[in-house]
């Protein structure tokens, strides 16, 4: 008997967090994420060369702008660096930026949304005004200025992205909390003497966690795009290889006028794939969260 009683909530929780199996978009999105995750994990083994090593052929000539072939899958840059290896190592950097920013954005947004929605009154007003201010700051210019002042480090880009992206999550979660807190089971918890924080984190939070994941998965793509833009403009970390750095390198080395498409097209495709995967997953999630939208 006790087993059955335990099994029911577990199944319910499983259903709540289950990712959509049917939605083809979500399936594609997840597959893309898994592939990039594996590439990032085994980047050292997949890369064929040191991404920053300047390569020469046997006669000591610089291997500049070599077209894709057996030795260099995607060719080389004009300074003789292996493009495929840069792309593979850049995956690691992109995922670190994307995932860490998403974690910060989702947790900050959830916490603010929970507190604002649950406590209401002046706490709510204050937090939502702060959110308005954050939304009134131009996104990319702010990240550029902050990265330039605080030093070109990956962590500073993540901080800047998090500082401006949390309000979107917080607003949606707040409105969701406003409806959840009126439900009967919250009243029941209150009557049975649960403390305020216990109600907030044990009873309210599980109901809004799917939204946290939804906004987190969108934030991954945003952060990667932003990091790429900042690196492209020359304010990114110079010690690590990222897709944005590759594109800046290609742009600065006149790759477009040379027509070396094999250099600057692949990093862009990778960025598109990761960001689109986030869109697709959030779409699949939305259909679970708001089944009404699906008619």
């Amino acid at each position, binding site marked *: 008997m006790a087993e059955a009683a335990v099994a029911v909530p577990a199944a319910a929780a499983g259903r709540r967090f289950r990712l959509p199996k049917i939605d083809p978009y979500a399936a594609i999105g997840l597959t893309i994420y898994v592939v990039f995750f594996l590439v990032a994990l085994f980047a050292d083994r997949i890369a064929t060369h040191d991404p920053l090593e300047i390569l020469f052929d046997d006669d000591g000539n610089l291997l500049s702008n070599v077209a894709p072939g057996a030795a260099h899958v995607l060719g080389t840059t004009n300074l003789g660096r292996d493009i495929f290896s840069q792309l593979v190592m850049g995956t690691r950097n992109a995922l670190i930026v994307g995932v860490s920013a998403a974690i910060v954005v989702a947790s900050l947004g959830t916490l603010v949304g929970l507190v604002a929605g649950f406590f209401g009154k002046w706490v709510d007003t204050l937090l939502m*005004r702060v959110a*308005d*201010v954050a*939304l*009134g*700051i*131009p*996104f*990319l*210019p*702010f990240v*550029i*200025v*902050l990265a*330039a*002042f605080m030093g070109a480090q990956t962590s500073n880009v993540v901080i800047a992205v998090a500082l401006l992206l949390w309000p979107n999550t917080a607003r949606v979660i707040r409105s969701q909390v406003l409806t959840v807190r009126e439900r009967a089971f919250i009243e029941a918890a209150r009557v049975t003497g649960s403390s305020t924080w216990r109600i907030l984190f044990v009873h309210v939070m599980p109901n809004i966690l799917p939204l946290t994941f939804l906004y987190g998965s969108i934030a991954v*793509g945003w952060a990667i*795009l932003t990091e*790429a*833009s900042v690196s*492209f*403009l*020359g*304010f990114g970390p110079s010690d690590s290889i990222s897709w*944005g750095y590759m*594109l800046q390198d*290609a*742009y600065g080395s006149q*790759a*477009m*006028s040379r*027509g070396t*498409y094999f250099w*600057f*097209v692949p*990093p*862009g495709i990778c*960025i*598109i794939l990761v*960001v*689109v995967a986030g*869109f*697709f997953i959030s779409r699949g999630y939305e259909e679970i969260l708001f089944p009404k939208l699906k*008619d």
Partner: protein
Amino acid sequence: MPRIVTRLLHMLLVLWAVATILFLMFRLMPGDPTLAYIDTTFSAEQRQQLLVMFGLDRPLHEQYFIYLWNLLQGELGTSFHYKRPVLDLVLSVLPNTVVLTFVSLLLAYIFGVLVGAWLAWRRGSWLEGVVIPSVLALRAAPEFWLGMVLLATLGFGLGIFPSGGANSPGATFSSEWARIFSLDYAQHLVLPTLTLFLYLQGLPLLLMRSNMLEVMQEDFIMMARMKGLSERSIMLRHAARNAMLPVVTAFALGFGGSIGGNVVVESVFSWPGLGRLLVNAVAGNDYPLAQGAFLLITMFLVVMNFVADLLYSALDPRVSHG
């Protein structure tokens, strides 16, 4: 009316808060705080003059009030690099940014509304499976990368369009208007506009499509059907007109957001606009110019948010005016 007043006060609050954050950012950055206004190459006399003007010889809180007072008067300091007033510099590049943003946004929204409405009409056809993923992919593409691809193909590859700048070197014009309406300017405008257009069209398209699908469920559409109106008339005159309301609001929001978001596109095409000015100022430690350009971009964003808010309640009578 009270709603407008509250919204206006709200907007001023946000502007003030951003100005304050900017003040703190530029004062608390590593190094000498006077660096924000005084370059090391300025003469002792210039230095003294600027110190008094911005109250940099006084305590921080007094500096703050002097800063706000100067802002209200449009006094943004002198650029280190150009040795000219920041206000003149930002205003001189503003038309380029506004033209680029407005033209691309307008094209993107016209295209998005038409194609979005058409897609909603043809719901469930194979077209959806092709168009929607492509639209999402274009929205996910970094703007600067789209620009690079267009530069390589249409700019250098075909050689039809100039690769950068807003005017050919050496070109002279009788006035600012003559410059903006010249053929030369239009040729330079094509590639950056196309890049922004490709990036921006996704939002209105998807928004229009989902609005149309929603509106098509409403009673007045059924009413129109029962009146025996043609399908075309129902779609265009009844459904599309109502579905467009949120798109108009999105246009205002998009305009405010794009002024700052243009930063990368302007850099790719060396387009002499506000975003490129900001990037160059930050890269060259030209603090007064960076601060001025940032403030102007912020003002656009906040004012357009305000306009969008007003439009939203003015266009849709169902939104309460309370």
